[in-house]
């Protein structure tokens, strides 16, 4: 099995690694880098549990090879709250109980962050459509939509 040297920036830190050609980005992040917040639900690109941001855009890390990420700037859920304080999005998810089992949550958070960054004034309709890329089997999505809207408002206020 051939291998490749890659260099990626993960949550702001540059990392070099030697990866098998077939190593998925999700497996690389979870098992080689130890960032287990990126979850695996289907390995097929269907569920979005493995969502990470690359250059600020959401990507399904289960259907991308680690070698394809060479040179990329990757953001995982672990970046949201490096210290004691949680990110406003995380706080909003907590306030609204936008999670139950927590398995879709890292992907949902990153997808929501992308949505809010794209459009800080998003409507409920837009938030719902936006997160429809990601499956949640627990919540029925409603409290996630509430959390995204609330977080967007908070983040606007913080920016403002």
């Amino acid at each position, binding site marked *: 099995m051939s291998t490749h040297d890659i260099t990626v920036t993960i949550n702001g830190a540059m990392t070099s690694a030697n990866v098998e050609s077939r190593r998925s980005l999700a497996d690389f992040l979870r098992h080689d880098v130890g960032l287990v917040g990126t979850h695996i*639900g*289907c390995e*097929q690109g269907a569920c979005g549990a493995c969502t990470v941001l690359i250059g600020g855009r959401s990507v399904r890390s289960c259907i991308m090879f680690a070698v394809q990420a060479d040179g990329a700037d990757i953001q995982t859920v672990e970046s949201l709250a490096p210290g004691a304080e949680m990110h406003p999005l995380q706080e909003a998810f907590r306030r609204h109980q936008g*999670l139950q089992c927590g*398995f879709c949550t890292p992907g949902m958070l990153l997808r929501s962050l992308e949505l809010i960054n794209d459009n800080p004034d998003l409507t409920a309709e837009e938030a719902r459509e936006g997160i429809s890329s990601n499956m949640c089997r627990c919540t029925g999505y409603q409290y996630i939509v509430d959390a995204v809207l609330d977080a967007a408002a908070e983040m606007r206020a913080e920016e403002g």
Partner: protein
Amino acid sequence: MTVPEVRQHPEHLEWVGKSIPRVEDPKFLRGRGNYIDDYEVPNMLEVAVARSTMAHAKILSIDTSAAEAVPGVVAIVTSENVTDHVNPMPDFGPSPDKHTWYCLAVDKVRYMGEGVAVVAATSRAIAEDAAELIEVEYEPLEPLTDLLEALEDDAPLIHEALESNIPFQRNFTFGDVDGDFAAADVIVRDTLWWGRSGGQPLETVGAVADYDAATGMMTIHVNSMSFTHFLFLLANTLRVPSNKLDLQPHPSGGSFGAKFFEVKTATIAAMMARITGRPVKFMQDRLDNIANGDHHGSDRYYEVELAAKADGTLLSTRYKVVDNYGAYIQFGVGQHGNSLAQAVGPYRMSSIGYDLTAVLTNKCQQGAYRGFGSEVGNWILERMVDLMARELDMDPVDIRRMNFIQPDQFPYFIPTGNVYDSGDYEAVLNKTMELSDYKGWRERQAEMRAEGRHIGIGVCTCQERSVFSATEFWFWFDEPVAAPVTSAPESVTLKVDAMGAVTATLYSNASWGNSPETMVAQFVAEELGVEPEDVSVVYGGSNQGMPATGPGGSRFTIMVGGAVEGASQSIRAKAAKIAAHLLEANEDDLVWENGGFAVRGSPDQRKELAEIALAAHMFKHSLPEEIETGLEASHVQDHPYTTMPNPERTNLGVFYPFVGHASHVVVVEVDPETGRVEFLDYAAVHDCGTVVNPRSVGGQVIGGTVQGLGSTLYEEFLYDEDGVLRTPSFAEYLIPSAMDSPTLRVGHNETPSPYTPYGIKGGGEAGRMMAPSAICAAIDDALGIRIRRLPATPERIVEMVDAKD
């Protein structure tokens, strides 16, 4: 046991009833959930399972030579030698020796996807590579997937030892069914099909096993531990002494039944760990979970008759049910106990006939799915009540309302023997009508119809039973197959340390996306006067654990609430002795208030729990002789209300006594050309007794409703007539997305149970138990059709419209 005492619930509750933020959330929000796949140990191997490509075939030979040659492969077990390593799986089925179930297929494969070999290798990828190279020679046998064909004399046999495909058949009669039917003015009849869907949690099942040959200890980390007090059965499967098996729970990324006593994954990991002498992880992939996960939901065919008086008074229901269990039948027909627990719904009916036939076919076996079969019973009954309303030209709301069991009739014994502890169905219905603006919608519906739009309104009023009793494992039989088990306990240990900080230890894998830590923190806060966020909740392994059962049948919150209550009483009793000594007061003169003991009448003379705890831990020799060091107590909560079935099984006793209720009103618009269903409004009012955390119950209701929507409109494990599984991934097995899901308006009504701590009833399964009935009624109303088969996919809806025209 007879009837438990009626409790006097406290007037004022400090924490129970508040939507505090969940204490389990920060770790999940940070991606530090400690899920099973996050757990890795040095030197660990991983396994992959080679699965049957045939639905039904004899295994002639298995060639593993190419697989063994793959560098990194450490061990392979196949169908040919699995019985050398393990005993059959724990099996609560009717006659396990006649439909024997191992962790891999033995002699023949019985469904597509059944395991035929397992490979342990240094990585999952290598294990998968090797599994692909395993060559199995099959002799195809005729596949059987249809439940009615399974009944035919010349049907192929799934298990030759059984000599038929019918592991269970019995016709139950509860009350005077014939008399009630003879007295009826109207009888409506229908045939109905409930298609197979399943929990499909986003996280699959996994296990990491480690066997220590020196001590003989088998330790397995799992995300599926429940039925903890039955783990000796797993020890038997693994051929280890029961006191040398330890299961360590990890939070589950959802279950909905799919991880309920799922020990096949643990068995495979443990078997390979013992063979290789190394830690072994088995993490199912999605295909493993869909095709071979042992937790498909109900798959039933019904012929039903409902009898009523001309004025709409319901009298009796006669069911003929055939249930397609798939290749094995691990929990027996327990899914029907769930139906029988609430067989008359919220209605006064004096008899029930229930003729139940279980069949085996070439499908993956059934297990649990949110509702555990009771959701099917609800749907059938509500379908029939709607049909009766149509027949009598009555409003579907009116026929329900006039048949409700009335508040002064509780506790109400239904014909099957189960009791409904309390309820106020009319209040729930009224609230739902208001919340949904039912009248307004009926008016708008008329206007919108005039514009040519297909608008439908559906109503359901259904029960949610909670807290099963173990009698339902065996009341099916004249003689219990194993033992007439009656225990289904839940335990907790509370430790107040020297600083007064409380740790609660739970003994089952309670974290499945419900909120066990929040519930326990709220209970401890209520009982001991601490802040919920200061309570530390941890999980004990099974080996040092206390008797526990875990979530299932909406039991956990009530049972663990009772355990916390009992342990807190012991802690307060000891604390009172210490406080009396410290305050130089008589124990009888102390009152417990706001987290400490005070002398009655002089509130300034008081000791806080922390002060008492410090004394309890550090000052043994300053305290009265009989007080031992420490402040810790455990409590085993047994089922609060169970009675035995009668010998004739015309009365099954009380086995699911805390019965909630809900009403949903749904407004849909359906496109008759495409079959697309759009939700215009969705109102749901639930009564699960005293609500511990309204927001988390709300979340359960919404999430459950969306799962119910999935079972109603999209989800089905579809096998074709050749036994080929047509829905092996999320590309075919369609889980509702955010765009498919309605925004609910959720209301609560609270009719406290007289028999449970604080008056709580279980509420975790409710949404899924109601949604199918209300949604089908709404679609029927929109199009003038009658849905008789689930899922009512867009194609099927269009077919029904076409058939009508």
